[in-house]
């Protein structure tokens, strides 16, 4: 190695920068040839059995039914529509899951730091149990419990003749809006706008005079109480479509199916355990000196949390939280195991199989998950940038 060499190639190799360029070229060449190889392989093999790559099938009739659809869909709709139905179902469970996991996760994180021995241990045991069992098992377990522990439709748990719980799901009344409802809607939007404005206004006053308005209370009044009062004043312009047992199943209302409930709860409970640890770490990361300093200023405990601890902890929490959200969204594809009709089950499953368009369908599914993940990351990055320390 140390013997000086006259070979120009070898000398280039010993030069750090040239070497790194060479290595990069080789790496790029290898990666390109790898992809060229697999793409070529796929195309050749498809050609050998006489298949091409063609997305035209998307406009043909899907010919199959889907049990959960938030948009109009029937077996005469196209495969494209089936894909949209699946996509909406994926988004539904992902968003609902992120929502519930976040609430539970923050709760767990705070419980873990509680000075109450029991509270702390409960959270600890929960977190350790949940995150050390694969999420697929949680899904299957919950699904099995729902199917076997809950009664059949005829002997449903009945709440007030409006809510029914059985092993076909949770049947709930669905709202049907009458024409006068727009008045309530207008008050709702107005209340929202007012609260946004009032929050800014209150901050300005506080900055100028130090006077603190009860922003939260006033906002609730504007967004919730006032529209509610209006709603009752003009005679409750919503009729509820209440589910009722007809024949085999409940008709009317909306239903959260066992597949949705199992997937939603399992994903939320599982991800919440991880979020709990992230929240705990985030809060611990804020040095105790900060809290003491705030106490010395005479701030109340809730103000210390709100103004000193949480804003700083969020900076630590957001990046790992993002990856938990991404995990949850991607894990939702485990829907496959229990037949929840998500995007993998529709376009990546039934459509794929009925049309034999494996390549096309898998490309679509991959593109959808990629887009979804990028969307979540960019929203979280935007939020992260917003709460970062503004350095002056």
């Amino acid at each position: 190695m140390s013997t000086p060499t006259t070979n120009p190639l070898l000398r280039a190799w010993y030069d750090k920068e040239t070497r790194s360029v060479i290595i990069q070229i080789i790496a790029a060449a290898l990666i390109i040839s790898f992809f060229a190889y697999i793409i070529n392989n796929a195309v050749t093999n498809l050609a050998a059995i006489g298949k091409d790559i063609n997305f035209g099938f998307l406009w043909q009739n899907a010919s199959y039914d889907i049990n959960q659809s938030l948009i109009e869909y029937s077996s005469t709709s196209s495969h494209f529509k089936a894909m949209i139905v699946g996509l909406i179902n994926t988004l539904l469970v992902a968003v609902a899951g992120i929502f519930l996991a976040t609430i539970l996760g923050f709760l767990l994180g705070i419980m873990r730091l509680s000075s109450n021995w029991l509270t702390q241990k409960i959270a600890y045991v929960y977190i350790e149990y949940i995150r050390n069992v694969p999420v697929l098992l949680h899904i299957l377990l919950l699904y099995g419990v729902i199917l076997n522990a809950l009664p059949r439709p005829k002997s449903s748990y009945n709440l007030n003749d409006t809510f029914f719980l059985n092993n076909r799901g949770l049947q709930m009344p669905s709202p049907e809006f009458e024409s006068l409802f727009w008045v309530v809607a207008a008050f709702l939007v107005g209340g929202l706008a007012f609260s946004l404005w009032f929050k800014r206004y209150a901050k300005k006053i506080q900055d100028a005079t130090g006077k603190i308005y009860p922003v939260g209370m006033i906002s609730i009044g504007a967004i919730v109480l006032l529209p509610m009062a209006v709603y009752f004043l003009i005679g409750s312009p919503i009729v509820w479509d209440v589910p009722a047992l007809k024949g085999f199943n409940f008709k009317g209302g909306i239903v959260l199916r066992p597949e949705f409930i199992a997937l939603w709860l399992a994903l939320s409970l599982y991800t919440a355990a991880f979020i709990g640890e992230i929240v705990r770490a985030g809060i611990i990361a804020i040095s105790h000196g900060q809290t003491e300093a705030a106490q010395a200023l005479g701030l109340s405990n809730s103000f210390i949390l709100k103004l000193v601890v949480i804003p700083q902890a969020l900076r630590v929490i957001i990046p790992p939280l993002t990856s938990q959200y991404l995990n949850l969204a991607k894990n939702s594809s485990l829907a496959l195991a229990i037949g929840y009709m998500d995007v993998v089950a529709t376009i990546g499953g039934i459509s794929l199989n009925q049309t034999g368009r494996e390549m096309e369908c898998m490309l679509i599914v991959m593109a959808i998950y990629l887009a979804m993940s990028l969307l979540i990351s960019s929203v979280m990055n935007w939020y992260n940038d917003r709460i970062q320390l503004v350095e002056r």
Partner: protein
Amino acid sequence: MKLINKVLTGVALTAMTATAAQASTLEDVRAADELKCVVTTGLAGFAAPNAAGRWEGFDADFCRAVAAAVLGDGDKVKFVPSTGKTRFTMLNSGEGDILFRNTTETLSRDVDLKLSFLPVNFYDGQGFMVPASLGVSSALELDGASVCIQTGTTTELNLADYFRTNGMSYEPVAIETNEEGFTNYVAGRCDVYTTDASGLASTRAKFEDPTQHLVLPEIISKEPLGGAVRHGDDQWADIGKWVVNALINAEEMGITQANAMNLASNVGNNPGINRLVGSEGTMGEMLGLGPKWAAQAIAAVGNYGEIYERNVGPNTPLEIGRGLNNLWNKGGVLYAAPIR
């Protein structure tokens, strides 16, 4: 740099071999000395591992027959379990050489999914099973029911058509395998289980008291079940086709598991039998197989009738009568092309 050269040449070479792959399936099977046969994940009577782990059933026997014809040994089969959804991909991607999995021949599967179907070996139709306690006696009373269906099957398409045509609504509950369908049905997630009538017979036989479950009288579709191979290898498709035909013809001619090898080693005075068992003529050679290809297949699993009786017939838990699956001259529709 030499190393890098080697690596690059290696990559280029593998790329080239991959392109040049796609040798004939027959050669591949011979080289591996094993037939990879795509079957169900487990449907008693058709293909399911027994207590000792040996695959048994109607479809499993057809796999063995092909292996015996090609490799001379009916046990040289590797069974590849597949769901309704994965079976065609598995066949087309080369994970299997041949498919025997309760598979209905349809135009789109033949043309669009690029399969070559072998002759029909089981005439079936889609039916419904309900718990007797439900008090339903016709499929037309099923409006609003929850129905368990296996995805990736003709079943789910027929079901959509049937309910639509009859102006009824239903809640489809999609499941992957027969086992899952059974579990969901037992748990009451669905009121009705629908699949091929043969599959219902097999599933119903699993209940402690099968009389608690009713198969409704309506058969809503035609399900001609048969084996399949990939498009584009005519020789291999021919082999599959003629093994099936040979098994059916053997029943017609009285060639059985017990006498097949005997007949093959002595030239008898029935030229039809001689040609089939290979004591005369060059049928095997034309297919690229040995002269006793058909005799080996029959000796391994028996003729069509023997396969049927052993796995799904009236004396098995499935109790499926011969019906359409009888020979043409015995009231059925089995009419195999002659071996000549």
